[in-house]
Each structure stands twice: as C-alpha cells, then as structure tokens.
C-alpha cells in the first residue's frame, strides 16, 4: 500500500483547500453508505435467523433482534440434514478442485511445454471455446449426462458431470498455459536428460513451480463450486445427493419462511468465513482470473 500523498488523484497540496476537504468528507460518507448497502442485507438475514417465531413475523420487522431462539437453528439443521448437505457440497467442491487443476493443468502443459505436432489445433479449439457464448449447451449437455456418449450410462445423481465440466475449463487451460510458458526450458530439458517421463516432469518440476497459479485457481474454484447452482440442480435429483444451494432452491416452495431464512444463513456463512480468512488471496485471485467470472 502506498503512502497517502501518492494514493490518488487528490494530491497533498489540494488538501490545503477547504473545498477539497469537504469533497473528501462527502466521498467518505457516500462510501460508508455503500458499505452499509453491501453488508446490511446479509446481516439482516443472520439477525432474523435467531429471532423467535413471533418476532420473525412481526410487522413492522425489526432490524436488531430482541429475542433469541437458538433451538430453531438446531431444529432446522436436523430437519434439513445440513450435515449431509455440507458433506455433499464439500465432496463436490473437492472433486471440482482436483479436476480443475489436474486436467486443465495437463492440457496447459501439453500446449505450453510438450507442443507435439498438431497441438496448435487443440489450442485454437480451446480458445474458441472460451470466446463463444454458451447458449446452446443446456439441452445437448443434459442429453450427454443422462446418456453418456459411447458408454450409454446415466450420470444423474452423481458429481461426475460437474467434476468433468470443471476439468474442461478453457479459461483455466489458457491461464495454466500462460504460466507454464514462463518456466525456463532449461529446467525441463535437464529433467528430460535425467530420464524423467513427461508425467514425472509435470508433477515434479512444473507443478511445484506453479504454486501461485494453483493457489489462485483453487480459491476461485472453491468459491465457484460452493455457489454452483445450475448443473447440480439439473443433475442431483435425489435429495440424498443435494448440495446446500440445490437444497435452498428446492425448498423455496415447500419450507416455511423462517426455516428458509435459517437455511439461507447456513448457505452464506461458510463462504463468508472463508472470505474473512482469505480476503487478500480471494481478491487477488479475482483480479487474476475473475474477468471471465
């Protein structure tokens, strides 16, 4: 972070003028207001979740709860089986991270380092995949999931479709490719002379040198997988397989409002905690890979 006098447009000298001081105060106030708009809705949700049922439905609604009923939190947890929902989401996320790094990484390695004859075509195809809008995917992808090509198996109620989609992310492939191109070829040649196989070079040389990019993609993927809605909703029809997000969407029509609030709070708390701890990395990762998001 730079020191104050070089931070922005308003220079040190300007602050000698009263008008500029007032301007700064106004900007500050506006930003405080914007912060409130950003933070209050989730905070209202959390505070409403602990109200007792009478206060919850009180008119007008209260901002700060007067009553606390924590038993309802436990009941909702048990009723909707949040242990299983969290475990499912965790499993979905873990697989998504592994597939994202492994298969996009290998393809990036193939395009950046191995470069066998014909790899140029693959590069062009991957680039086009990223550039073309995906408005045609819904039906054909669903068809491929319920009747997997050649194998003919039905992958409904399995995490595999989401994992495989994560393993074919054109944007990540290009990020990996760009990063791997920066690895000095001498390192790879030396390993080749020592008799390393291609796969060994990938895991022993390329991956250890790519910790920053792997970290960024991991954090980004964890966040995206946690929030992922459409394909989990389409694929996971059995409620034993639901993720948290699928569950809160599906109970929109069935659960009572106070239960929905609590469930929604449970869906927001984990990423919020993640953000509190990894704020810096998450924002860095976003500037790194977020333009597509």
């Amino acid at each position: 972070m730079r020191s104050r006098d070089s931070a922005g447009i308003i220079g040190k000298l300007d602050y000698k003028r009263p008008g500029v001081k007032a301007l700064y105060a106004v900007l500050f106030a506006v930003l405080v207001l914007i912060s409130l708009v950003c933070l209050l809705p989730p905070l209202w949700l959390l505070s409403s979740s602990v109200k007792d049922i009478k206060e919850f439905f009180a008119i007008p609604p209260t901002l700060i709860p007067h009553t606390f009923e924590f038993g309802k939190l436990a009941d909702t947890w048990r009723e909707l089986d949040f242990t299983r929902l969290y475990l499912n989401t965790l499993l979905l996320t873990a697989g998504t991270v592994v597939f994202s790094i492994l298969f996009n990484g290998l393809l990036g390695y193939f395009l950046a380092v191995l470069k066998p004859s014909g790899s140029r075509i693959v590069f062009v195809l991957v680039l086009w995949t990223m550039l073309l809008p995906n408005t045609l995917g819904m039906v054909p992808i669903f068809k491929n999931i319920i009747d997997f090509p050649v194998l003919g198996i039905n992958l409904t109620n399995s995490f595999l479709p989401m994992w495989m989609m994560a393993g074919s992310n054109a944007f990540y492939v290009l990020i990996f490719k760009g990063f791997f191109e920066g690895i000095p070829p001498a390192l790879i040649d030396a390993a080749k002379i020592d008799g390393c196989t291609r796969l060994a070079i990938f895991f022993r040389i390329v991956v250890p040198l790519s910790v920053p990019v792997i970290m960024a993609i991991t954090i980004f993927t964890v966040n995206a997988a946690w929030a992922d809605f459409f394909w989990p909703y389409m694929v996971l029809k059995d409620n034993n397989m639901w993720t948290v997000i699928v569950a809160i969407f599906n109970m929109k029509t069935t659960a009572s409002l106070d239960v929905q609030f609590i469930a929604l709070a449970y869906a927001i708390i984990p990423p919020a905690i993640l953000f509190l701890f990894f704020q810096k990395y998450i924002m860095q990762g976003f500037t790194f890979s977020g333009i597509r998001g």
Partner: protein
Amino acid sequence: MKKWLYRDLPSWLLIVPSLLFFVVFHWQPIVSGFVLSFFETKGYNAVRFNGLQNYIDVISNSVFQQTLVNTFMYVIWSLIIGFLVPIVVAIMINEMANLQAFFKFSVYFPGMVPGVAAALLWTFMFDPGPGGLLNMLLAKLGLPMSQWLQNSHLTIPLIIVTMTWRSFGGTVILYLASLQGVNHELYEAAAIDGAGIRKRVRHITIPQISPIIGILLILQIIGVFQVLYEPLTMTEGGPNNSSMSLMLTSYHYAFRYFEAGRSLAVGVITFLILAVLTAVYFRIDKRANAD
C-alpha cells in the same frame, strides 16, 4: 511414423481425459445443438428434419417479441445501474486515506454470497407485504409501500439491482487494480499545470483505465444478455412474462415443455445476436483506437 509414435504419442495420451471432457461438455454439444435446432425432437432426440419450423414456431409465439425486448431491457438497465457504479466507487475508494481496506472488504463481500442465495435474500427483502424489509424502510420514511417485483414495470430493474449488488464489488476490485497502475507523476504534472480535480479525472484517470472499461463493458453486455438464474429464482419470468429472458425461455422450452428443438432454436437466435453485438463492439473499438 515411428518417430511420431515415440515423440508425440505419449504427449497426446496425457491429455486424453481433458480432451474427452472438452468433447462431451463443449464441442459436441455446440455442434449437435446447432444441428438439432433444425429437427423435430422427441425427448432429447431428433425425430426428423423440419428445416426452419422450430424457428418459425418460436418467433411466432406471442410472448417472443416481449422476451426479446425484455432481454435488451436487462442489458440497458444493467448499463444504467451497473456500469458506472463500479467505476465511480473504485475511483472513490482509491482516494480514501482512511478505512480503504474496510471499503474494499464491504463492496466485495456480496460477491461471496452464492448467486441463488443472493437472489432469494433480495426476494425476501422485496416482499410486497408490510412485513418486507424495504417496505418497512419506506414506511419509516413516510412513503407508500411498493409492490416491488410484483410491479411489472419494476421487475427487470430490481432484478438488475440484485445482480449489481452481488457483482459490482468484483468489478470495483478490477478497476482498483487498474487505477493503482496509473503513473502518479501524471497527476502531479497536471496539478502543477493547474488542472483541477475534475479535469484530472477526465483527462488522466478515465483515459488511463479506458482499455479495461471497454473489456468489462462488452463482458457485462454478453453476460447480462444470457441472464437466467436470477429471473428463474426470483420471478420465474413473471409477473405476466415481464421478466422473461431469452435464456429462461430456452430453459422453459427444454425442461418444462420438453421441446428440445425449440429450446435450441432460441439458443441459436441468442447466439447470433451475441455474435452481432460482439462484432459491432470490436468494429467500434477498432475505429476508436484508429482515431
């Protein structure tokens, strides 16, 4: 041949799974989706070729015209509400000597709320009854209650408010990164030449970050044009189809009416409009850069 076998084949073997995933989830779907849009379908399978019949059916549907207009309205509202806000907020945060980290935290925080959760949260706040949070605030200010999402004139702008709430912080962070890269000597030189703050913003800050403004603008247009989850979660296209979007129509055709061919015809139409928009953007961009 032997050389290829030793030198290139092992490399290709490494990416077999990756390529398989790309084929099954990206390349085959886009081709078969395009082809299937010209077929009469049963379930998700082609029955027989019927030329442009799906397109004719889709376009002659009484709601289609409204849907097309709505989709453009989503984009226009997202430009009105969501385009300038991140730029202004980023410039403001960049000026802050106090609490800068807190402001960054706050604006990015909604981005951590999963999209469907954010849509539901705002649906609760937009509750049209007296128990809704926003109606309570209106009452406190002495204003009449609003129907919010139930008012068909407000539906699209309010959905855009929800989307902007969730995503503008990320955009702010991107602009901030770009603002930090502006050479500070430019501001000092301008200040010495007597340029006021407004002039510095107009003649230094904006031109310096304009490349990223252009990229984010086109990405925003492309993204919002494909809006699906928010209306699906918040209104299901209602009231009276006033928030129906092209992609939601495509979704409804595919999974509510099981008309795969029509769903894909809508997909192709959306695809073509996006292609035209992108091409126009690059044409303008090129001309602007040439001047």
